[in-house]
């Protein structure tokens, strides 16, 4: 048993997982309130990655940043969060709100259109080339924790740390604040909440803002860890985020976190070991197969996910 490899895979799985968890959270929040599969969520993440890249370039680039590195990273994340938050609000306002009383399939098709529109707009504006965050110039790869077989690059720590910080903040927001109470009420029964004086439209707008801001932050974190971004990256993260939310229990916040970590770990471990287990017949690209199998197993055995409640239909 190669312990170094295992530890490295676990670390990268947790990093990836915390990004997936952020995506899954936004997806789950929106689903909880609107019962709407926001298929454009992955593309919001992609826009966040590009916003972060734009801020990086604007503040002098990775080689010669004009502010301290920690401040730069904070600014990138906050800028992407704000930009994506407003993007999410715009998507809700123009693509989903006109369809509140439409058949279930209408907002989904609209979401497909939004996703396609955003992707190709970014392609039009920035071209098809990969853009690089040049994180290795920003932060030396040597910096980080080194303890026995455990070597963690500081960027990975930043990614995990900020993801967990945001998740904790969201948890507090939803369980302790007035807005959180309104969100929970709206998600439980939209009409009853409206009758109790909750401004449902405003709650929905705020939910979209928060969810999309999380996706934007996740986009910057992806850019920081993996270095490369392009207009099509949102598809993969959106897909894995949806899977994480379903596995964890759609609409449940701890479920989204746990689902994200689980999917991240599963993906990292299968990337590392699938070649060994299949004696080289399947390459690491087939890690998606494992994630898909997890999704299918959950669909068959526990469709409501780990923390979800069984879907009861009311007439």
């Amino acid at each position: 048993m190669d312990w170094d490899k295992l530890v490295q895979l676990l670390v990268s799985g947790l990093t990836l997982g915390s990004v997936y968890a952020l995506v899954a959270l936004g997806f789950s929040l929106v689903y909880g309130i609107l019962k709407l599969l926001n298929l454009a969520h992955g593309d919001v993440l992609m826009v966040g990655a590009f916003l972060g890249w734009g801020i990086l370039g604007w503040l002098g680039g990775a080689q010669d940043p004009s502010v301290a590195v920690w401040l730069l990273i904070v600014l990138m994340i906050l800028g992407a969060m704000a930009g994506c938050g407003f993007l999410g609000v715009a998507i809700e306002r123009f693509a989903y709100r006109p369809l509140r009383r439409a058949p279930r399939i209408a907002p989904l098709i609209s979401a497909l259109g939004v996703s396609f529109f955003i992707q190709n707009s970014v392609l039009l504006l920035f071209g098809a080339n990969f853009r690089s965050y040049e994180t290795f110039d920003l932060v030396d790869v040597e910096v980080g924790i080194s303890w026995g077989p455990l070597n963690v690059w500081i960027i990975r720590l930043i990614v995990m740390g900020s993801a967990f910080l945001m998740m904790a903040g969201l948890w507090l927001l939803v369980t302790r604040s007035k807005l959180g109470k309104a969100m929970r009420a709206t998600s439980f029964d939209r009409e009853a909440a409206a009758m109790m004086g909750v401004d449902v439209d405003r709650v929905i707008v705020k939910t979209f803002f928060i969810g999309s801001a999380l996706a934007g932050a996740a986009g910057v974190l992806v850019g920081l860890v993996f270095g490369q971004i392009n207009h099509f990256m949102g598809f993969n993260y959106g897909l894995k985020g949806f899977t994480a939310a379903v596995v964890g229990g759609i609409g449940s916040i701890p479920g989204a976190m746990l689902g994200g970590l689980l999917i991240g770990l599963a993906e990292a471990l299968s990337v590392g070991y699938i070649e060994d287990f299949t004696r080289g017949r399947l390459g690491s690209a087939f890690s998606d197969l494992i994630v898909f199998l997890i999704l299918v197993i959950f669909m068959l055995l526990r469709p409501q996910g780990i923390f979800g409640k069984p879907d009861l239909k009311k007439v």
Partner: protein
Amino acid sequence: MSDQTPENLPSPGIGVDEWVASADERRARSLGGRVDDAFTRAPPVLKLLVLALPFAVFPLLVDSDYFMQVGVDTLIYVLLALGLNVAVGWVGLLDLGYVAFFGIGAYLYAAVASEYAGRYWEAQFAIPLIALAVAAVGLVVGIPSRRLSGDYLAIVTLFFLQLYLVVLVNASFTRGPNGISDIYPLKFFGKQVVSLDGYYYVALAAFILVVTALYLVNESRTGRAWRALREDELAAELMTMPVNRLKLMAFAIGAGVAGVTGAIFAPVQGAIFPASFDIVLLITVYAMVVLGGAGSLLGVIVGAVVINVSLEALRSPDDASWLFYGVVALTILLLGRPWWRGPVIILGTIAFGFVAHELAEQVRPSLVEGTSFGQARIDELVDSWVLLPVDIVTPDGLPAGAFGRLAYMGLVAAVLALTLIRKPLWRTIAIVPVLYLAACVWENLLVAQPAVARFILIGGMLVALMAFRPQGLFGKQRVEIV
């Protein structure tokens, strides 16, 4: 309508839902609705004639290989749209893995008739077998979500598409991204189909068979059950309809149609690559189904033809310009109410453009020094009308193409803001500069990148259609009954 008070509003008859009555009335007034209603009432043979005749006479009217190729492509898209319509239009399931079934059909054909596979099956056996095999795959993919709502089906099928692409690109038996390039032509009873015309007739025959079969299924008990299921799943279940079996059936039938289409597509192309079956194709086929009107056979076919022909026209910048200005002008003329509003907007935009052009020339000449990308006659006029900066580093130090990009972002914001204006007068006034901005963006940015431009237009069209006319051109408006 404003003089109608609630008292003298015509009340719907007893037993008729008010919403349904008003929707039906609106539908009876609209052109698409009337055409579709007339089509629905026509006898079945006449329907088939209406649908197939234009395709049958098409080869007699054209004599160039290019147009025949467009014709074959169009028929293939029509077949794809028909298959997708089963799940999306009739049952209301979001099948996001649909193009994977198309691809599986194509690769299966390559597996039974190519030099690479070393086999050469005759098409009369291969195509039905492929249809069955792909339908079986569809059934298996649908099973995990059988207990769940449509949203889960969307995720599972989308993931299935991703997985399918991963396998295509990485597996050795599909030759990865290089694709399979030595596919044999179709062979029926020992006779090879060699010409493009031959493929056109094969596709036409497949189209007639598929349309007839789908029509019969839709008119049958199963078809009625599908529609009931789409309108209210719970009620359908309480009426003892086997909901899950019906869903899986629709799913499998759609997959089977896609498989047949793939089996025709592969020999037409002679070579297939993973990139031919990606999400871009998926969304294009969705746009076809939605534009024509999901659920209406006539609509879906018209949607597929319209979108494929316009995408084809967008390939060349000259035709694209005509198409762009033509479609914009026509839309405004048709949608303008009352009738004089359309012409006023168009004339206003033209006048606004000349004024803006003149002003820009006085203030900053570099803004108008460029020439438009196209070569058609219209572009000479356009040069003296829209703002076209020279496409080099401008004196302000903006990078090349920055004007177009800024204008594009401004246009998106402006169009969104336009939908928020409620007052008709203000809307009429505000639409003029937005149209002019759109023309600037078109000439500066989109016309040079037709591939991206067409996808942006498709994405925007999907959103706009869903917001303003979810039933498409010929479909029936539906509402979620809560």
